[in-house]
């Protein structure tokens, strides 16, 4: 079930009404409702994989308890590694098995050996990367004595399977979400209203920005050989907005939905295209994944405790793993390595934490220097997106090669619907720039004129209805 579908528009109000009116506001009953709803939500996509989800949940729940009750450290370690291996094993089989087999066969072929390995004919269970990381963070936290295990299976299952975050994050932490699940939730009008605003903004980003950009992106990337350089630039820039609208739109809807149910999720995006360098971009893009890798990989690897070189090595590993997390393709690995290469100079010069505040804080416009910094960062990110979008590294390089031609100075093709898409992107940038110090691009709680607020809401609704492209699945579902 997609957030931008009629089914969800019917499903969620029913859950909302039952949640607040039919449960006596008792969190235990609310959790049962949330769990049943989450299984239904997931089962609408493919009910067969519900068993995998339930097994994965049960395994982490059980190993969590066994670790806490272990009589000695050895037993605790045993249970810990069992959980890690099984979790990563599932991920490996469903997501990476075919990639490794194909790559190995290709390697042998390069050495003149013929190899025929059978690959798996399975589809990737939606959200597996997300719920596996949920479970892993829980197990790692228990192993490191950061949290105590949750003894109620329903509560733990809601932590893993809570439908707003189940299939595309944000990747939650037990330390943040579990305490909210195990206590009574109170309906807060202002939070609920803001949740609705965030859902509306998320729908705008997904339906108007991402789905419209997708049409141009697909045409240009699928026919990159015959496109002019200016069209290739257009395609790459459109993809930057497509993936941002798609993923941050999803996150906004997820956060808003959860807030309507009285639960706060981790923020996942902080206006990343207003970043002044790559380090800042990574503090603002897919925040829940970046911080997950920081806490559960970078720090255990030694972080920066072993000096500059260790920090460089660990950062490089984080970027590669992060790239590979996105998909079993060399393009994602390259994308990770590309960002690592951009990050390294900042790290070596000790300038990676130069911009921790928001750009042009309290000002209407950025300074010229800030503007140039933002544009440069955006340009570099766009080049990275070419690798992310292209089906192979070779095609990505050919795409980039195509940019260096005199046709770069010609006007791009005026595709049908391009004008409305550019206008919508302009609206997106204006709102997000104006509200860049807030949590999301439609956080209008400071605007006291109620009429004006409603006018803005209706304008957004009208834009969604008028400009919205046909419904497409979310890109991050494939990860």
């Amino acid at each position: 079930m997609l957030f931008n579908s009629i089914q969800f528009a019917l499903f969620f109000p029913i859950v909302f009404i039952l949640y607040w009116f039919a449960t006596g506001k008792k969190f235990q009953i609310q959790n049962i409702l949330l769990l049943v709803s989450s299984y239904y939500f997931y089962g609408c996509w493919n009910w067969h994989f519900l068993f995998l989800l339930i097994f994965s949940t049960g395994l982490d729940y059980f190993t969590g308890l066994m670790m806490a009750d272990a009589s000695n450290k050895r037993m605790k370690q045993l249970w810990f590694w069992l959980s890690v291996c099984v979790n990563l094993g599932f991920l490996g089989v469903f997501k990476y098995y075919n990639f490794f087999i194909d790559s190995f066969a290709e390697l042998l072929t390069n050495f003149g050996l013929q190899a025929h390995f059978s690959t798996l004919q399975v589809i990737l269970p939606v959200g597996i990367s997300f719920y596996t990381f949920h479970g892993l963070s829980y197990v790692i936290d228990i192993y490191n004595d950061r949290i105590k295990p949750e003894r109620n299976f329903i509560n733990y299952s809601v932590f893993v399977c809570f439908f707003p975050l189940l299939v595309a994050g944000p990747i939650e932490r037990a330390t943040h979400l579990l305490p909210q699940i195990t206590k009574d939730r109170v309906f807060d009008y202002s939070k609920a209203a803001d949740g609705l605003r965030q859902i509306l903004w998320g729908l705008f980003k997904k339906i108007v920005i991402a789905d419209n950009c997708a049409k141009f992106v697909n045409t240009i990337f699928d026919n990159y050989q015959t496109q002019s350089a200016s069209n290739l630039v257009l395609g790459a820039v459109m993809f930057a907005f497509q993936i941002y609208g798609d993923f941050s739109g999803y996150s906004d809807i997820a956060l808003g939905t959860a807030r309507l149910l009285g639960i706060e999720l981790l923020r996942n995006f902080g206006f990343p295209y207003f970043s002044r360098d790559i380090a800042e971009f990574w503090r603002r893009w897919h925040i829940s994944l970046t911080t997950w890798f920081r806490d559960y990989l970078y720090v255990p690897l030694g972080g920066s405790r072993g000096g500059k070189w260790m920090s460089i090595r660990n950062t490089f590993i984080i970027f590669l793993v992060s790239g590979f997390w996105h998909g079993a393709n060399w393009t994602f690995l390259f994308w990770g390595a590309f960002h690592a290469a951009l990050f390294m100079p900042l790290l070596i010069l000790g300038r990676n934490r130069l911009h921790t505040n928001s750009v042009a804080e309290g000002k209407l416009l950025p300074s010229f220097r800030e503007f140039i910094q933002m544009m440069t960062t955006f340009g570099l990110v766009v080049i990275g997106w070419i690798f992310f979008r292209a089906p192979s590294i070779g095609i990505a390089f050919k795409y980039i090669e195509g940019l260096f031609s005199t046709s770069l100075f010609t006007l791009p093709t005026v595709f049908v619907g391009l004008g409305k898409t550019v206008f919508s992107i302009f609206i997106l940038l204006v709102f997000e720039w104006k509200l860049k110090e807030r949590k999301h691009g439609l956080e209008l709680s400071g605007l006291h004129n109620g009429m004006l607020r409603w006018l803005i809401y209706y304008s957004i609704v009208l834009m969604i209805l008028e400009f919205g492209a046909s419904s497409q699945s979310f890109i991050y579902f494939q990860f």
Partner: protein
Amino acid sequence: MKRFIIKILCFFGIPLLFIIASYIITDPFGTIKPFSLFYKMSPNREYQSFELFKHNFKKQRYNSFIFGSSRGCGLNTYQWKKYLSKSSKPFLFQAWGETLTGIYQKIAYLRNKNIRIQNAIILIDIPGSFSKKQEPTEAIGIKHYELSEKTKLYYQSNLFIAYLKPSEIYNSINAYYHKNPTVINFDTITNDWNKNNKYIKTCPKQDRTLNKDKFISVSETISSPLIDKNMKIVLDSIKKIFNENHTIYKIIVTPAYTKEKINPKDLEILQKLFDKKNVYNYSGNNEITSDKYNFMDINHFDGIVGWKIIEEVYN
């Protein structure tokens, strides 16, 4: 909570009531009131075709059919009839973005109603006919409930969702207010799209095409294999019904200025199933597709090409 619910109801409820009322009153797609040639014509070509068929069948007793997408607007049944037996009564079934499943649904409907299919032409678009996309959400593409075996309520709710566009609502109310007359631009017996096609056999090139400047020169591309297991089942089912009816049929892979060629594997499947002599391939780069004057737009060949195709296929 009470304040929240009231505000939500006000925000969504009032505009929604207005839109529902305007939908029922203005009947934007001509699907609420019963079908009549004197009432609003649905922009959904499948709905209009199918309703016209039901409306006329008792009197016309059709027995020969063309099935396909909007590309069928280049063909005309008057010319086709010349190659059929005297008792033939042809009818053109069209649907926007018609897929093989859509064609099968119509053929199955005819079988279920015991309507004999004496002659048939199936028009194949590359890649549209083999599309695996879910049902279209645009008003012009939503499948007729009787063919897709859905309820009328489901059908209307899909149309209502398609209606939820400010410009659509405005246009509908505007047309209703100004009482715009119904325009019938199809043959009310055979359902030929361009009524003038039957008279056009030759025409000076420069007078033929519209929007010539929108034609971008493209080179031939070969489509990836599109016929999967499920589509083979659909094709088998179509063939089975044709066999039951002893239908004389032709499968025409239509030309398009996009020059996308059917994949040889797909062509082989069609030829194997329907016999090589019944399958005609006009996709890819050829005499027709290399001349933009043969097209009304990049996807639709014009009536002159339609004449040429019928002549070639039946001679």
